[in-house]
């Protein structure tokens, strides 16, 4: 609230201070980065840490402008939290395809990165989410702490802020 209530008081004293110049790209990226809505994609253990504990009052995900959506069609970000099996892999691809561009993926935890503890001797676990969808951020840990989920989101926001405007419009054509 501080910046919104106090900024005009300072800026109006400067001649022409009411006008802010920036590039469209920066404006778009800033607004996109500060309202990344993520899809609830809790698969296993990481869902409790990454989605529920992080969303609860102690870590408070909402202050990053991140709100969970139950539908892929309303979300920009998919946090794959947990072990992905071959059976679920097909469904993950369908859900990813349903998300509108621009879209991002965070692979949370060892299992989503490369299979984690289920890498060896296992016949049903997919060895990493990146086998089927492109991943932007990997979070190590089994499960990662909520702090590292927050750090991953900050990193993702940095990435979004640096993006070129043409990237996503080209991909939709």
């Amino acid at each position, binding site marked *: 609230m501080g910046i919104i209530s106090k900024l005009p008081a300072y800026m109006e004293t400067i001649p022409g201070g009411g006008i802010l110049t920036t590039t469209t790209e920066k404006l778009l990226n800033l607004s996109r980065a500060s309202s990344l809505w993520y899809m609830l994609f809790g698969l296993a253990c990481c869902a409790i840490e990454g989605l529920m504990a992080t969303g609860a009052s102690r870590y408070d995900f909402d202050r990053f402008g991140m709100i969970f959506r139950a539908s892929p069609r309303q979300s920009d970000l998919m946090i794959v939290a947990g072990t992905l099996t071959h059976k679920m892999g097909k469904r993950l691809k369908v859900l990813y395809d349903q998300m509108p561009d621009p879209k991002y993926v965070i692979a949370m935890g060892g299992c989503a990165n490369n299979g984690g503890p289920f890498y060896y*001797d296992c016949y*049903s676990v997919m060895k990493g989410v990146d086998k089927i969808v492109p991943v932007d951020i990997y979070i190590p840990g089994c499960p990662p702490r909520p702090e590292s989920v927050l750090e991953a989101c900050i990193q993702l926001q940095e990435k979004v802020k640096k993006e070129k405007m043409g990237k996503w419009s080209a991909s939709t054509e």
Partner: protein
Amino acid sequence: MDSESLLKYVQEEYSERIIGGEMVKGVPVFEVKPEKWVSLCGMLRDDSDTMMHSVSNYTAVDYREKHGGFKLVITIFSHILNHRLTLETLLPAKDDEIPEIETLATVWPTTIWFEREHAELFGIEFINHPDPRHLMLDDDWDEGYPMRRGWTGTDFVVKPDK
């Protein structure tokens, strides 16, 4: 009923249906003839002295090398009388053979899922099963029966380097 008297009771009452019974770590364990498997289970459930109306666990074990077949092991218990016992039966099978046995779903409906799991993971066929679909594996799974011993698996099973 305590374990000792339960062992004695079942051995006397159902002697023609079991092959043998012994005490293993304080729990009576009986070896059952495969053709009497379902009927014995039904009787133990309905008998007012045993009242085995719940299933604690239901396992299939691959004993093809040791005993020449698969073993089904079921642990049943009674909430009311607070006792439990274990029944075992051996289904002869060699190499890639698929053994068959009558389903237990008519006795305890909870075994439906257990049997679906055993069918897909071990390759045991349950006759008259009400819902013979895959449970854990995908519908288009065709890589064999992964829980069988010696199953080498597909290319996505990674073995650690020795």
